[in-house]
């Protein structure tokens, strides 16, 4: 598989789930997550078309640029996360590179956003995904594991009261809602797993 395919699959998945993600932010936030995410992905696709990067790292950096050019809280945080992924992956898509990038990315997001695991944010999916990748192994297996870990992390946010982001303003009302940022991380790894096993 190529990073390009992965991003195409991710973009398709985002579009498919956009309405549900928007709803989640509406229930526990300010409702703009769906717009923020789809416009970030669209910008990423444009950047890819314009720059046609020839390494997987370059592809991920183009995605990073798409998110960094997007507002809200998720835009800049995902932008930095994809940036670390891109820089670590570099010229070749390997489990080791991805693992390193996911670890660095989660750390950067935590440093900037000051969220811990359990605060009901994207971090709740990023950290377990990074751990899953850190175990190594062939790329397809590693991505399967990362996708499963991220999904589980995302689902775990459902019963939490948020401690960061706008969801933290609504208190108990956020309980029962899966954090859309975390869900997006799961969609990303799921897209990778799907493309490698295809």
């Amino acid at each position, binding site marked *: 598989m190529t990073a390009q395919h992965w991003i195409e699959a991710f973009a398709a998945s985002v579009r498919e789930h956009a309405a549900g993600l928007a709803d989640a932010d509406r229930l526990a936030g300010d409702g703009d997550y769906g717009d923020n995410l789809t416009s970030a992905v669209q910008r990423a696709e444009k950047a890819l078309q314009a720059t046609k990067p020839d390494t997987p790292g370059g592809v991920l950096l183009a995605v990073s*640029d798409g998110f*960094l*050019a*997007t*507002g809200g*809280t998720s*835009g*800049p*945080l995902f*932008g*930095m996360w994809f*940036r670390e992924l891109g820089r670590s992956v570099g010229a070749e898509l390997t489990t080791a590179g991805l693992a390193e990038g996911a670890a660095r990315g989660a750390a*950067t997001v935590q440093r*900037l*956003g000051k969220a811990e695991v359990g605060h009901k944010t994207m971090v709740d999916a990023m950290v377990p995904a990074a751990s899953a990748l850190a175990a190594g192994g062939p790329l397809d297996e590693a991505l399967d594991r990362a996708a499963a870990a991220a999904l589980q992390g995302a689902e775990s946010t459902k019963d939490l009261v948020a401690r960061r982001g706008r969801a933290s303003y609504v208190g108990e009302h956020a309980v029962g809602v899966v954090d859309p940022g975390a869900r997006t991380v799961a969609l990303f790894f799921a897209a990778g797993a799907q493309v490698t096993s295809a």
Partner: protein
Amino acid sequence: MTALFNEPAGFVAEALAGFARAHAGLIRYEPDPGYVVRANPAAKVALVSGGGSGHEPLHTGFVGAGMLDAAVPGAVFASPTAAQIRAAVRAADRGRGVLLVVKNYTGDVLNFSIAAELAAEDGIDVRTVLVADDLATDSADGPGRRGTAAVVAVEKIAGAAAEAGADLDAVADIATRVAASARTLALAFTACTAPGRDRPAFELGPDEIEFGVGIHGERGIEVRKAAPAAELVAQLAEPVVDALGLAAGEKVIALVNGLGATHGLELAVAHEELVSFLAARDIVVARALVGSYVTALDMKGCSITLVRAPAEFVDRWDAPVRTPALTW
């Protein structure tokens, strides 16, 4: 009521194009990704600031010789993106490093700190000064004091230092000291109405004022009774004097700032009252800036900022500046 626009979505971009066109000799607007830079850059430490739009002339009106090298405007009352800021930093950098002047809001802090990291990776030496002057938000927990009108003094004084050839450390240092020496308090008579909205953010009775407002049209800390200018100015100035611990004989730079719809005559009255208030405490207004410089769309009200002003600050304040909104 923001009334002169075509579509709310394109409002800021069209306004910036028009603004840059009106000041073509001084500034240039890059619509993609959206920032304003000096038309004639100088080989010196660069200053870059930015934040949500709706506060004009802040920050775009302060781009030019002796002040900012670039300003990065977001949508109305929304932070610019890290990508915008990064592009502006790249455009402004002349190899001597860049000082980011950031008002203390969660979105701005996040996006400017990401931009700072990206710029560092681009090989640009970056420092950040956080401006957090608004006493209405001075509580122990929470995100800390908001950044409001004091940012003008930070940009003017640090801008003069940079223009005079100071290095990045020195520019960051004086900016930090100005920010630490400045506090602000504001009140409003009416709220503002964002483009496309049909009513103001809040309503007040005819004899009420909103005390402790910020610059995003939000409510302040309490509703008070309207009063003569002398009394309102005292209500703003006294906590500022106390917070800075200003003593008899000290000198200040005073900013009497309109929030958008306050007439020049009213600000002049407020200034006259402020000078009397301070004179009664033997505090000397060494320099003053009276006008609408940091606005909240068409909010009617004013803020008072005092900056404890050693001779070094006054000298930098007096240095020439040539920007759309401030020239001397």
